Structure formats: structure tokens, C-alpha cells
């Protein structure tokens, strides 16, 4: 009985959790003895239930890279670009293998697996001469092979074979769904994951192919069925042939054709393309909903999301909010439960950049925290990125962000994070918010958790982090962040380099604090590393180059870190290339260098610095004074000093 109870828990609950929570059943020997044993009914399980139960006991390992990457130091990606390239290269290898399989099909005809697995065998090739009939067309349609299905259909047409209206209808549906364009095959998940936001660009314009196969098929189906209307309207709406989709809907209405809910949903989604002002859009939306109720169609989640999408396009904040508040209770009455996509629309309706501050996300989170979601609507994947954006830019609230993050890590909700683009937006906002609101120690905990395996900060976020660290006066983290920046390949951003140096120079390490005791040496190491990297980059003609200020800061850091030798080398570089380097080091950098020369008893270096200062029109009196007081100069040095700053200086 114990076992069966556990098994019932299997698919949902975490095994470890259920074992510990019901551990009392087998450790203590005191169950009620006279309670009758009740054998529960058998529960049907799918073949993968056990695997899923086992998988649910394992959470994401933050210390390891994603499992799609090979677990070897050489093969672990260390920057965003590498993550993308490696995953895509692997997939490209898989594509190459598939090409080989199709190209040398005669080698792959054997059948090892029982029952045979279709995906391992080369796919059927249809040519102009293939012998085809209706069944092959039906099979291709059920497999979703668009190109082959269209080819076979054309062959059947040429040979004059009759095609049943049902088959034509299902082909019409297939063609309308894909707009007669081959989609990305489902097995290439990385390509989908890394697909840059092409959708948004598509969104703006019509992509529907006018007068193409879909419309030809539609015209061939006589008499027109509600399904044929529905598929053509939905296809046109999906690919933004808005005017004709709406016209077709009206035509169907005039002919008293009974359409279905999803067709109306697709037209409500494109209301914003049909009308221009908010009032007109809302009117049309309401008209469509009324038409649905006249046809006794029950609205579903798609209707709710379509209405909210329509509302979210209203420019006027007040109208939008009023409309949303009007629509929501009605759908609630109808028993339509909102999905994450609906909440996404609510967020973009209520939390606008220019609108007043709205705390709608608090209510939403109270409503859904701790719940596990499954994908129900295409827009469901937009929720988390938008919610985090609202937390950062609209409300600036750390605790809310933590709540959103908790929700994301509840159950399988992480599946709804979308694609790599949305995931990086999510973490970008999350880290930026944390670094602004948390103390540096707390922030570094989250940073260590997320970076680099889950998320690698972009240069902009790195700058935010550096700024937060400077504000909190935690300069001791800068050398660490510098080494991260080297790994993440941020070293060709001039602004970042300058900022790192600026922080290290401006915040003199506090020798009393133990955390900063090592900082001067570390700072010198950072400076030297940067110097060498930029030199290397210049040789390779990369974008970055030295500026006078950068070199001055490097000089200062080296002097402070006690690497005088290296400092002289850097100064020699400054001196030699002064016509190539834009700008000059600050006077303070030169003063510190001269002071160090005094300590190191090297008057010639100090005089070089003075010479440089004079040549570049600095106010050199301060430098000359320091040199004069610091050294007991011999004749040659003294005469050089005189020639640089003039006799009058010494007489004072």
C-alpha cells in the first residue's frame, strides 16, 4: 500500500519530498490497526512518467554549464557569443549528418530497430514521376510535410485524379497554417532557441501570399464549408492579410455560415490593423464579441488574450485600463481562466512608461505565486521577461523581482521562459535591479550563482554592476570583475576599460580594511593586464586603442601597486607614441610617477616626465619643485632641469 501511495504521487510530486513527508508510514509502527486496508484503483501511466518523476528530483545545477554543452573545460562556452556558436555548430553538424543520410539514402535503408523508427530512415522522395494516390497525400498531410504534400497534390491534379473535399480541406488547413512556406523543422531546437526576434519584424507587415495555393484550394472547395472559411480567415489573419480576412468574415456572416470561436479570436487579434483609433478598435472588438454571442459561441482563453491584445494597442492609457477592467470580470464569469499570456497583456496595458505607476503586478503575483503553468497560448512565454522588466523599470522593487524569480523556478515554469533572447532580457533586468538595490555582498551571492553558467552579463550590465560597486565603495571586487570581463570578452569596450581604471584610481584602497589590503598589487596587475591586452588588440587592428587618460590611469595604478619597473615601461610608451595617442595623462598621474621616481632614486625618469609635461603644455612648476626638492641633482641633471623650466625657477 505504501508503494502504491507513492506511485500515485509520482508524476507530480518530487520524490524526495514525498518520501520525507510521508516517512512516518514506514518508520513508526503505529498505524491504526483496525483501519480496513483500502486498495486504490490502478492509475494509468504513460511510459515516461517514471522518468519524469526521477527528473523532477534534479534541479538545474548552477555550477555546471547547460547540458547541451560538452562537460570539458576546453569545450565549455565562456561568453555569450561562444554559447551561441557552440550550440549552433552542434546543430549544424546534425544537419550535415541528415544531409548525408538523404544524399546516400541507399546506405541507410537497413532496419535495426523494432518496431522501425521512421525518423532514422531517409525520407521518401517525391518527384514528377512518382506514382502517387490519395493515401500518400493524406499521409504527408498528417506528417505535416508541407512541400511534399503540395508536390503530390500538384501531381494528382496533373493526372486528373479526383481528390476528395475532406482531403482538400486538410491540405488547405496545412497550407494556411504555414502560409505555404516550409517551417523550421521541429528537431532543430537550438535554431529556434537562438532565433533572434524575427517575429517582431514580421509582425509589422503582411506576409500572406495573395492568390497562392491556399486561395486556389479554397476556390476549388464547393460548396463552401464553415471549415474552409475558418481556415482561410485564420491563415490570412495569422499572416496579416487583415482587410481580406475581415471581409471574408463579414461574407461568412452574411451567408449565415456558422464559424467557430478560434476564427473569431484570430480576427479580434488583428483589430488593431483594421482600425486606427482606440474608440474604433474597441467598438469593432465589441461588435465581434456580440456577433460571437449571437452565434452562441463560447469564448475561450484565446478570446480573452485576443481582446487583451487589442486593448494593449490602445494609445490612450485611460481607455485601455477601463476596457481591460470591463473585459476581465466578464471572462471570469464565463469561467475563462487567464494564462500567463493574459497576465503579460495586463502588464503591458497597466504598466506603461508614460502612464501612472501601477501595482497590478502585485495582485497578479498574489494570484499566481506557487502555481505551476503549462503553455496554453503563444504569448505565455512573454510573461517572465516583461514581469521582470516591470519590476526593474516601472516599480524598482527588489522583493517583487524575487517573487517573480521564485515563480519562474516553481515546477516546470522555467519551460515558459521563452527563448535565449527573452531569457537574457529577464536576467539582464534581474541583475541590474539587484545590483542597484542590494548590498554588494548580497548582490555578489546572486552574481556568483547566475554568472557565467546561466547568464553572462552584457557590457552595459557590467557597467551598471561596476557603478553599483563604486557607489557602495566595495572596490575590492573590481579585480574579480575584471577577470570576468576578460573571460566574457568585454575588453574591447573602451568605455568599460576607462571605467574600471577610473574606479581603481579614484578610490584609493583603504589600508586598514583587510579586504582591501591586497588591492594595490591587484590593481597594478589589472592595469598591466589591460595594457598588454590593448597593445595586443592594436596589433590585431581591433577597435580599441589607447587614450592618454587610460595610459595615465594605468601608470598611476602601476606606481601605486609598487611595480615601478613596469611603470617606467608604460611611461616610455606614452613618451614615444605621444603623437599617436589622443589626449594626455592627467597631471596627477605624472606627479605620482615623479614621486615614485624620487623614492626609487631615479632622477632621469623624473626628468623625462618633466620634459613630457613641458612639451605638452602642463603646468610644470609643481613637478619641477618636487624633483628639485626630492633629489640632490648632479650637474647634467641640474642643467637639464634649468633648460626645461628656466633659470628663474631655481632662484625662488
Amino acid at each position: 500500500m505504501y508503494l502504491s501511495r507513492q506511485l500515485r504521487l509520482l508524476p507530480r510530486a518530487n520524490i524526495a519530498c514525498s518520501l520525507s513527508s510521508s516517512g512516518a508510514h514506514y518508520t513508526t509502527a503505529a498505524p491504526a490497526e483496525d483501519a480496513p486496508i483500502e486498495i486504490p484503483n490502478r492509475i494509468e501511466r504513460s511510459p515516461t512518467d517514471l522518468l519524469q518523476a526521477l527528473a523532477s528530483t534534479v534541479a538545474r545545477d548552477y555550477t555546471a554549464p547547460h547540458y547541451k554543452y560538452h562537460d570539458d573545460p576546453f569545450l565549455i562556452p565562456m561568453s555569450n557569443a561562444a554559447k551561441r556558436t557552440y550550440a549552433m555548430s552542434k546543430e549544424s553538424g546534425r544537419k550535415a549528418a541528415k544531409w548525408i543520410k538523404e544524399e546516400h539514402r541507399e546506405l541507410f535503408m537497413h532496419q535495426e530497430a523494432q518496431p522501425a523508427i521512421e525518423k532514422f530512415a531517409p525520407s521518401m522522395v517525391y518527384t514528377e514521376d512518382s506514382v502517387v494516390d490519395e493515401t500518400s497525400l493524406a499521409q504527408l498531410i498528417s506528417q505535416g510535410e508541407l512541400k511534399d504534400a503540395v508536390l503530390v497534390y500538384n501531381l494528382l491534379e496533373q493526372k486528373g485524379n479526383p481528390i476528395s473535399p475532406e482531403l482538400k480541406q486538410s491540405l488547405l488547413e496545412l497550407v494556411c497554417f504555414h502560409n505555404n512556406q516550409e517551417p523550421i523543422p521541429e528537431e532543430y531546437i537550438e535554431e529556434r532557441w537562438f532565433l533572434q526576434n524575427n517575429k517582431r519584424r514580421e509582425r509589422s507587415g503582411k506576409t500572406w501570399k495573395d492568390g497562392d495555393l491556399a486561395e486556389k484550394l479554397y476556390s476549388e472547395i464547393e460548396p463552401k464549408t464553415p471549415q474552409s472559411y475558418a481556415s482561410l480567415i485564420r491563415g490570412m489573419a495569422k499572416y496579416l492579410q487583415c482587410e481580406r480576412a475581415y471581409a471574408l468574415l463579414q461574407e461568412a456572416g452574411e451567408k449565415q455560415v456558422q464559424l467557430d470561436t478560434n476564427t473569431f479570436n484570430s480576427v479580434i487579434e488583428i483589430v488593431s490593423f483594421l482600425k486606427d483609433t482606440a474608440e474604433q478598435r474597441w467598438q469593432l472588438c465589441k461588435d465581434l464579441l456580440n456577433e460571437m454571442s449571437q452565434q452562441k459561441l463560447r469564448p475561450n482563453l484565446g478570446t480573452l488574450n485576443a481582446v487583451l491584445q487589442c486593448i494593449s494597442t490602445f494609445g490612450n492609457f485611460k481607455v485601455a485600463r477601463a476596457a481591460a477592467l470591463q473585459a476581465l470580470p466578464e471572462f471570469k464569469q464565463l469561467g475563462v481562466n487567464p494564462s500567463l499570456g493574459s497576465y503579460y497583456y495586463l502588464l503591458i496595458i497597466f504598466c506603461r512608461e508614460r502612464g501612472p505607476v501601477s501595482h497590478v503586478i502585485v495582485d497578479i503575483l498574489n494570484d499566481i505565486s506557487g502555481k505551476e503553468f503549462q503553455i496554453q497560448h503563444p504569448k505565455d512565454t512573454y510573461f517572465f521577461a516583461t514581469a521582470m522588466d516591470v519590476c526593474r523599470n516601472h516599480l524598482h522593487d527588489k522583493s517583487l523581482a524575487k517573487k517573480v524569480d521564485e515563480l519562474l523556478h516553481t515546477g516546470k515554469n522555467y519551460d515558459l521562459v521563452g527563448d535565449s533572447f527573452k531569457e537574457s532580457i529577464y536576467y539582464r533586468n534581474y541583475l541590474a535591479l539587484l545590483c542597484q538595490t542590494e548590498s554588494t555582498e548580497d548582490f555578489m551571492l546572486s552574481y556568483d550563482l547566475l554568472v557565467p553558467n546561466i547568464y553572462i552579463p552584457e557590457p552595459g550590465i557590467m557597467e551598471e554592476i561596476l557603478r553599483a560597486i563604486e557607489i557602495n565603495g566595495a572596490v575590492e571586487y573590481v579585480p574579480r570583475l575584471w577577470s570576468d570581463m576578460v573571460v566574457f570578452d568585454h575588453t574591447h569596450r573602451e568605455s568599460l576599460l576607462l571605467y574600471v581604471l577610473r574606479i581603481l584610481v579614484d578610490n584609493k584602497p583603504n589600508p586598514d580594511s583587510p579586504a582591501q589590503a591586497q588591492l594595490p598589487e591587484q590593481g597594478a596587475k589589472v592595469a598591466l593586464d589591460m595594457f598588454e591586452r590593448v597593445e595586443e588588440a592594436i596589433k590585431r587592428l581591433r577597435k580599441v586603442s589607447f587614450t592618454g587618460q587610460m595610459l595615465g590611469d594605468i601608470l598611476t595604478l602601476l606606481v601605486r601597486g609598487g611595480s615601478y619597473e613596469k611603470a617606467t615601461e608604460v611611461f616610455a610608451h606614452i613618451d614615444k607614441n605621444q603623437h599617436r595617442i589622443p589626449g594626455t595623462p592627467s597631471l596627477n598621474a605624472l606627479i605620482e610617477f615623479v614621486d615614485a621616481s624620487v623614492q626609487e632614486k631615479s632622477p632621469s625618469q623624473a626628468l623625462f616626465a618633466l620634459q613630457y609635461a613641458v612639451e605638452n603644455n602642463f603646468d610644470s612648476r609643481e613637478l619641477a619643485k618636487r624633483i628639485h626638492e626630492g633629489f640632490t641633482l648632479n650637474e647634467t641633471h641640474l642643467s637639464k632641469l634649468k633648460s626645461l623650466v628656466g633659470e628663474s625657477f631655481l632662484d625662488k
Partner: protein
Amino acid sequence: MNFLKKLLPQVATEVQQLSRSGFHTSSVCCRVQSGRYRITTKRNRPLTYEMANPPHFIGHRKSWNSWNTSTMKDALRPSQTAIEDVFIRKFVTGTWHALVCSEVIIKRQHNTIRIAALIRQAITPRKMYFLIGYTEELLSYWMQCPVTLELQTVGDKKDVVFKYI
């Protein structure tokens, strides 16, 4: 059987009785060559750890190169498995040309095949990922089951050299 004699006297007597019955008279021919490497005159042939240990150390100092259950009692497809393993080895060493610097270890569990090897870091990680994807996919088309590569990389070919003979 000398070690048996030392261990157990009573066994030794039985062995003597057996040998007295004399059902084996020809001299023993133990010369085996496979898996053993000849010493070169210049002593410059590099051996990996596995090559340095002759086959009788399998299970003691080194392990098997193919892990499967096809040779157990009533097990399925022993010959096919052996041939497939040869094919996999040839395919992997050929696809990863001049990069594989160890034995190719093939482990079969349920319906999956896991292939392990040491690879030289002579090409960029990007190219390696391409080859990983290609090898996994093509072998799984051939074997008609999921194939996983479990590679480790080494910086230099000399890193795997155990000794020179």
C-alpha cells in the same frame, strides 16, 4: 597451476593425480601477440597507459573497451554488436582525423550507446561541436538508437603518453 599448489596442498595432490592421468601431453603454446607492443631499438615508441598494459591486465589495471551484455547467456545479437563496435571505432577515428589519442570506449545501456575518447585540442571548440553533432547524429542513423559522445580533451598528444619503449 603452480600457484594453486602453493596455496592448497590437497589441491596439489589432486592436480598431481590428474596430471598422472595424462590427458594433455603436447607442450604449451602460450605465445600471444595481440595487444602487446614490440620494443623499438631507439626506445622511442610512445605508449598510452592502456597500450602499456597487455591484455591479461584487463579487469586489473585497465578496463574493457566495449561494455555490453551481448555475450551473456541468452543475450541478443553478439556478432552484430562486435561488428558495430568495429564500425564505430573506424568511424570515430576517421571522422576525428588525427585527433583521437586514446582507445574508443563504447558502452551500451538499454537502447543508448555512449562513446568515450580522448581528443587532442588541435581544432577550435566550434569545429569540435560540429563534429560532435555530426558523429552523434550519423551514428544514431546507422545504429538506429540514441548515440552520445562523451569526450575529454587533452592539450597535447604527449599528455597521454605513459612510457616510451
